[in-house]
C-alpha cells in the first residue's frame, strides 16, 4: 500500500514521477499493488467461478469434500433440466421479470425526468422545501409505508397483480429525481435563455433542449431502474402468490423451500438470474460508473 512505504522511498518516487520515468522502487510498488489487487480480484471472482462449476456437476460431484473444481463429466444437461425444474417453464419467470422491470423503467424515466426538470429549472414558491422533502424521503426506510400500502392495495384488489410494484414508479422516486436534477444542473443555463429568446415554451425547453442534452443521465436512470427492478425481492414477495406470476428472483427463493436442495440446478437458475443485470453492467459500464459517481447511489 502506498501509505505504508517509507518516507524516503516516496520522496524518490515523487521525484521520478515529476521527471516522468518510473524508478525501480515505483515499479516494485506497482508490482506489489498489482499483487494485492489480483489477489483481491480472485477472492471476488472465486465464488462466481464456484457457482458456474457447481452448475455443471452431477449431484454426486456436488457433494464431494474436498470440492472438485473442474466438473467431470461436464453436465450441460443441468441447464436444460433447470429450465423445467419449476412446474412452469423458466422463461415464464424471465418474461415476468422482464415485463415488470421494463414497466418500472419506463415509469421511472418518464416521471423523474419531468419532475427533476421542474426542480432544476423552474422557479415556484416552495420549491426549496419540496426538494428538501425529496431528499428526506431518500432516507426513508420503505418498511414504514409497507403495511398500509399492502392493506390499501389489497382493498382495491391489486394483490396478486403487478400494479403495486409498477404503478408507484410512475409517480417519481427520490433517488432518481435527485440524480437527474444533479445532472440537469450541469447543463449551462445560457441554453435555456437562448431557447426562451427563440420563443421556446417551457415544455419545448424540456423536450428539445434538456432531454436530448441529458441522454447519458436518462440512460443511467434507465439502467439503474431496470437492474433494481430486476433484483427486487421484498415487493414481489409480499404482493404475489401465484407461482406463474413470480419474477425470477422470487421464483429462485421458492426453489430453496422445496423438499430437496438441488444445488446444481439452484446455481444454474441463480446464474441465469444474474445475467441480465450483469450484461447490462458490462455493456454500459461507463454510464453505470458515472451514475454511481453522480448520485453516490450503489447498484
Amino acid at each position, binding site marked *: 500500500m502506498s501509505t505504508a512505504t517509507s518516507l524516503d522511498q516516496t520522496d524518490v518516487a515523487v521525484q521520478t514521477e515529476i521527471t516522468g520515468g518510473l524508478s525501480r522502487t515505483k515499479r516494485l510498488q506497482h508490482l506489489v499493488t498489482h499483487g494485492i489487487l489480483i489477489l483481491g480480484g480472485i477472492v471476488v471472482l472465486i465464488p462466481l467461478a464456484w457457482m458456474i462449476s457447481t452448475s455443471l456437476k452431477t449431484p454426486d460431484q456436488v457433494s464431494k469434500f474436498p470440492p472438485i473444481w473442474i466438473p467431470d463429466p461436464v453436465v450441460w444437461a443441468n441447464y436444460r433440466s433447470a429450465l*423445467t*425444474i*419449476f*412446474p412452469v417453464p423458466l422463461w415464464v419467470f424471465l418474461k415476468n421479470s422482464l415485463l415488470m422491470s421494463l414497466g418500472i423503467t419506463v415509469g421511472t424515466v418518464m416521471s423523474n425526468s419531468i419532475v427533476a426538470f421542474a426542480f432544476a429549472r423552474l422557479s415556484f414558491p416552495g420549491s426549496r422545501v419540496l426538494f428538501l422533502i425529496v431528499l428526506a424521503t431518500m432516507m426513508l426506510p420503505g418498511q414504514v409505508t409497507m403495511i398500509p400500502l399492502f392493506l390499501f392495495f*389489497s*382493498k382495491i*384488489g391489486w*394483490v*396478486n397483480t403487478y400494479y403495486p410494484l409498477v404503478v408507484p414508479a410512475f409517480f417519481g422516486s427520490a433517488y432518481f429525481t435527485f440524480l437527474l436534477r444533479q445532472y440537469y444542473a450541469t447543463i449551462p443555463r445560457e441554453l435555456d435563455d437562448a431557447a426562451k429568446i427563440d420563443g421556446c415554451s417551457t415544455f419545448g425547453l424540456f423536450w428539445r433542449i434538456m432531454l436530448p442534452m441529458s441522454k447519458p443521465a436518462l440512460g443511467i436512470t434507465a439502467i439503474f431502474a431496470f437492474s433494481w427492478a430486476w433484483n427486487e425481492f421484498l415487493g414481489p414477495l409480499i404482493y404475489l*402468490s*401465484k*407461482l*406463474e406470476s413470480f419474477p425470477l428472483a422470487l421464483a429462485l427463493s*421458492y426453489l430453496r*423451500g*422445496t*423438499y*430437496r*436442495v*438441488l444445488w446444481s440446478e439452484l446455481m444454474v437458475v441463480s446464474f441465469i438470474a444474474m445475467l441480465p443485470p450483469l450484461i447490462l453492467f458490462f455493456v454500459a459500464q461507463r454510464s453505470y460508473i458515472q451514475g454511481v459517481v453522480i448520485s453516490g447511489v450503489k447498484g
Partner: protein
Amino acid sequence: MSGSMSRRHFLRLSALAAGGTALTACAPQVVEKVVTVKETVEVEKEVEKVVTVKETVEVPAEIAPAVAPASIRLAEGSWVGPEGIKFWTDDIIPRFELENPGITVTWESAESDDYQDKLYAQAVAGDAPDVFFIWWSGGLMEKGQLLQLDEYFDKEYMSDFYPGNVVGQVLDGKLYGIPKYISTVALGYNKDILDEAGVPYPDGTWDVATYLDACQKCTKVTDGEITQWGNYISDGYLQHWVWMNGGEWMNADLFGTEALFNEAKAAEGLKYNYDMIYGANPTSAKPGQIPDMGWWNVFSTGKVGLVESHSWTVTNYIRENNFAWDFATLPKGSAGQAGLTFVNSYSAFNGTKEKDASVKLIEFLTGPWAQKAMCLGILGLQPARRSMRDVWDTVSMGAQAGKNVKAFNDIMEYARLTPEFKDSQKANEVLNPIWEQIWVTGELPFQEGLDLAAERINSLYQ
C-alpha cells in the same frame, strides 16, 4: 433413478385407471374394507352433528345436475420436486376435466414456504384459489373464509373418513373441509445403526424405558462431540407423549380454552423428550437448528437412529435413504399407547364464484380414484378413506418395498388429532415464542416455561 421408478409406477396406475373409466368419484370402492375403526364417543358425536345439519338439505352429490362450464383454480403441491408437480398438472387435473366436461382447472403451487400465509392474504383480498389444499385451516375457518360444505357432502360420503380427521374440519357443527390424507406419526428406525449398537428392532412392544435406552445406545460420541444421534425430536409434535403418559394437552379435543400440558403427568411425558435434548446424556440435537434440514430429512442423513416421522415421509425415504430402515408403532407410555394425527383438507374459498365446480373438484380429489392415485404414485400419501386402508398396507410404494407401513394405520386406530386452542392464531402467537425458548433456544427452564405458556394461554380466555 428411483425417481423414474416411481414415475413408471404411476404411469402403470394411470393405465389401470384408464382401463376402468367407471372409477369415478361416486363409483363403488375397489378395495374391501378390512378393519373397522374404534372411535371415541366424543368424536362420533361431532360427526353426528355434521350429519344432522346435512339431513335437512336434500341434494345428494351424486345426482346433482351437471355443472355449468366454469374455470376454477386449485392450489396444490406434492413436495417431491418437479416430477411431483406433473402429477397434478398432467394426471390428476386432466382426469378431472375429462370426467367433468366444461370445467377447466388451473393449478397453482402450494409448495412455497409461505403458502398458507399467503392464502390468508389472498382470502382477505378476495382472490384466494377456488379450491385449495390446507393443513390446519383453523384461522381461515374461524374467520369465515371457507365455504360451508354440509349441503354438498352427506353422512354417507363422510362416513368413510376417519372420524378423528373429520373433527378438525368442523367448527360450530358445520363442515368446512374434506380430509385429503392421513398424516400419522410412527417410529422410523435405521437398522444399520440399531444393529451396530446391538439394539433389537422396535416391534410395537417397547415401553418408554426401552426407547430411552435404545436412544442412548445409538448415540455415538467422538472426542466429546456427538457424531451420531440416538433420535431426533421435533418440538412441533409432542402431544402424544403427554397422552401416553396419562396427561392431557388441553381441556378439549379441539378448540380448548385451558392449557393442561404443564400438569404433572403431562409435563412428565414431555420431560422425557426434553431430557433427551438438554439432559446430562443428550441423544437428540436441538430442534430447528438446521435450516436446510427438517426432521424429515435428518433421518436420511443416516446419522440418526430413531425418528418419529409422518406417513408421507415413507416415499421420501425410499428415494433418499441409502441404508436399511423400517417403521414401527410408538413406544407405550404408562397410560398405554397414544398416537398423533394431523388434520389436512381440501376446502373451498367462501368467495368463490364457482361453488358447484369447486365442490365437484373436492369430491373428485377426495374420491376413491384420486385417493388411490395419491397413495400409489409419487406422492405416497396414506389415504384418508378407511375403506382404502388395504391399498396403503399392501400396494403402496412403501408396502411394495417391504416396509412395515401398516404401523401407520395401526396407530391411526387410537391416534388423536393435534390439539389446537380456540382462536388458534392468537393462542399460537402467545405459545410459539415460549415454546421456542423451551425447546430450541433453551432460554427458559422446562417447568417454568410450561407454566408460563399455560398461564399466558389461559389468560386469553378469561
